[in-house]
C-alpha cells in the first residue's frame, strides 16, 4: 500500500485548497472545548484536540432532518434524498478512531434489508480524514472497548510521526481523489517515515489506558439483570438524554409531521430521540412499557452492551467518554463498567477452575 507524509504546517493550505471542491468540517475551538464545525479559518482548526462536545454523527444523522416534503394542497409527498446528494461534498477533517467506529456502527444500523436512503446519501457525499489518537483524552476509554483503532470507514488516515509531519494512509478512492487534487502537499513516505509510524503506534499503546476489560460484558450483564446498581443509578439519572445526544452510536429517532403556518404544506421530520425520555415506549391508551426512570436507564445500558451485540454484532460504545462529560448527574459509563466487571469477578466460578 502506498503511504504518504504531509507537513503539519501545510494542513491549513491543504484545507484551503480542498475548499474549492468540498465543504470542510473539522475540530474548531469553542470556548473551553472543541466542536466539529465548518472550518472557516483553517489556521484555527486544531488537530491536537482531545474530544469534541458532539460527535460527527450529526453529519450522517442530523439532529433534525426533513425526510419528506408534503403538499397538503395537492396531497403529494416527496422525499428529500436528492437534496442531500445535491449538496456540496463534505470533508470531515481529523476524526478520531472512536468516532469513525461510531460512524461504522451507524452504518450497520441503517444498512441491511431496509436500507436507509438518507444515511446512505450522507455517506455518499462525505469524505472522512481520520486522525490517530496517540494520547489519551480526559474521559475516553477507547482501548478498553477495542475502538482505539480503525479497520475501515476512513478515506485518509493521519498519524502524527514527528513534531512536523503526519503519516498518511489512503483508505478508499475518495481518499485518493484528495491526493489527486492536492498532490503538492503529499510526499511519498520513505523508509524512515515507516519506522517513525511504527514508533508512533508503540507510543500510542504505551499511552492509552487499559485498566478496564469488557471481554465478558454480555455474560456480566446477564448476571447483573437484577442487581441493585440499576435502581441506584436510576435514582440519580435525570432522564435528560444528554448522554444519548452526544453519543456517536445512539441512533434512535422520532418521526413527526410538522405543518407549515400556511397549512398548505408540511414536512415529515426525523429527530433524535432517546430511550431515556418518558414517552419513548408510551403507547395509545397511556400504557408505558418503561414507566420508571431506572427501567429506562437500565434499558439504555443493556442496549449498548447487550442488545447491540445481537443486532449489529458489536457493542454500541466506542469509549469516547462524551457521555461522562455531558451527564449532569455525574453518572460515568466507565465507572458502571468497572463495577459490573467486579460483579463478574465476584460471581461464583466452578470449583477448581477450568
Amino acid at each position, binding site marked *: 500500500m502506498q503511504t504518504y507524509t504531509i507537513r503539519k504546517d501545510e494542513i491549513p493550505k491543504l484545507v484551503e485548497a480542498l475548499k474549492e471542491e468540498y465543504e470542510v468540517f473539522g475540530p474548531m475551538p469553542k470556548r473551553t472545548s472543541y466542536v466539529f464545525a465548518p472550518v472557516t479559518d483553517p489556521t484555527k482548526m486544531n488537530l491536537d484536540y482531545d474530544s469534541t462536545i458532539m460527535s460527527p454523527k450529526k453529519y450522517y444523522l442530523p439532529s433534525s432532518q426533513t425526510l419528506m416534503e408534503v403538499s397538503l394542497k395537492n396531497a403529494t*409527498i416527496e422525499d428529500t434524498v436528492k437534496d442531500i446528494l445535491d449538496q456540496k461534498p463534505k470533508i470531515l477533517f481529523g476524526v478520531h478512531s472512536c468516532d469513525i467506529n461510531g460512524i461504522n456502527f451507524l452504518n450497520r444500523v441503517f444498512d441491511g434489508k*431496509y436500507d*436507509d436512503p438518507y444515511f446512505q446519501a450522507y455517506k455518499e457525499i462525505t469524505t472522512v480524514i481520520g486522525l490517530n489518537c496517540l494520547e489519551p483524552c480526559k474521559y475516553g476509554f477507547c482501548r478498553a472497548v477495542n475502538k482505539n483503532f480503525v479497520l475501515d470507514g476512513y478515506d485518509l488516515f493521519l498519524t502524527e510521526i514527528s513534531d512536523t509531519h503526519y503519516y498518511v494512509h489512503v483508505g478508499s478512492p475518495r481518499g485518493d481523489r484528495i491526493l489527486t487534487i492536492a498532490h503538492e502537499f503529499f510526499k511519498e513516505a520513505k523508509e524512515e517515515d515507516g519506522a517513525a509510524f511504527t514508533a508512533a503506534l508503540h507510543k500510542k499503546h504505551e499511552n492509552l489506558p487499559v485498566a478496564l476489560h469488557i471481554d465478558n460484558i454480555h455474560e456480566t450483564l446477564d448476571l447483573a439483570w437484577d442487581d441493585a446498581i440499576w435502581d441506584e443509578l436510576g435514582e440519580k439519572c435525570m432522564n435528560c438524554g444528554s448522554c444519548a445526544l452526544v453519543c456517536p452510536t445512539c*441512533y434512535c429517532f422520532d418521526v413527526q*409531521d410538522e405543518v407549515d403556518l400556511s397549512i398548505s404544506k408540511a414536512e415529515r421530520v426525523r429527530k433524535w430521540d432517546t430511550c431515556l425520555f418518558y414517552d419513548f415506549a408510551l*403507547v395509545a391508551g397511556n400504557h408505558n412499557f418503561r414507566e420508571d426512570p431506572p427501567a429506562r436507564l437500565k434499558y439504555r445500558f443493556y442496549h449498548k452492551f447487550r442488545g447491540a451485540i445481537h*443486532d449489529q454484532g458489536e457493542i454500541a460504545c466506542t469509549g469516547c467518554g462524551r457521555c461522562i462529560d455531558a451527564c449532569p448527574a455525574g453518572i460515568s459509563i466507565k465507572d458502571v463498567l468497572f463495577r459490573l466487571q467486579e460483579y463478574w469477578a465476584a460471581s461464583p466460578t466452578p470449583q477448581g477452575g477450568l
Partner: protein
Amino acid sequence: MLITKDNIYDTHKCRLLRKYELTEHESLFLFRFEDPEVAQNWRYLPGQFVELSMLGYGEVPISICSSARRMGFFELCIRNAGRVTDRIHKLQPGDIVGIRGPYGNGFPVDQFHGRDLLCVAAGLGMAPLRSVFLYAIDNRWLFGNITIINTARYGKELLFQKELEAMKDIATAENIAIIQSTTRDPDWPGLKGRATEHMDKANVDPKNCAVAMCGPPAMYRGMFNYLVDAGYDPRYIFVTLERRMKCGVGKCGHCNIGTATSWKYACKDGPVFDYYAIISIPGLI
C-alpha cells in the same frame, strides 16, 4: 410480499372505499391501492401490520384485519385513541391515505396447516386475529376444527360481534365454534366471563391445536396457565404484541424489547411471538 420503493419511508397511495362503525371508538376501514400494479401484487401474512400515513399528522402502525387471501383490498380496524387516529376517523370514502408495509413477521400460518385453530381475543385484540381466522375460513380445508373466542368488557365494546353472530349458523355446520363473552356487562344477554372460563366450550384437540392470541397481558398470563395445564403444545401458542413504533423497519429503536438474554424489535422480530419467547423474555408482556 413487500413491494419496495427506493425509499423505505415512501408510501403507496391508498383510497378509502368504505368506513364502517364497529363500536363507539373503533371503525373498520376498507382500502384499495391506487396503483393497479401494487393492488394486484401486494401480499401480506395474517398478523402483519402497515404504517398508515396521514399527511400533516403523522404515521401510525396498524394491524391488518382482513384475510390475506382476499386480494386487492385490505381492511384496518382502528381505534380513535390519539391525534393521528382521530384524523383517520374523520376520513370519508374516496379520501387518500399513504400506506407502507406490510411489516413484521405475522403468524406462521403454514405451521398451522393440518391443525385445529384456537383464536382468543380480548378487546381490540380481535383486530389482528380477524386476519388469522378469516384466513383459516378462506382456506377451510387446511385446518381442523376452529374455535374463536371474542371477549370484551362490555357488549358495546365487542368488536365484530354482529359479523361473528351472523356467521354462527354456517360456522356450526363447518365445525367452527364462535364464543362471544363480556366480563363486566350486566345487560349483556349472552355469555359472561373471561376467555379462560369458556375454554370448556372450545371444540379443539389440545394435542393438535395452534393457538393465536391477542389481548392485554393479564389475559395472556391466565390463558398460558390454562393452556399449558390443559396439554396444549407450547410450540404452537402464539401471541401478537403492541409497542410504540415509528419506522416499522427496525431503525428507530422505539419498539425494542430488551432483557439480559434476548433482544427483539417488535416491528422486525415480532409483533408475533411464540410461547417460548414470552416465558424467556421478561418484559415482553
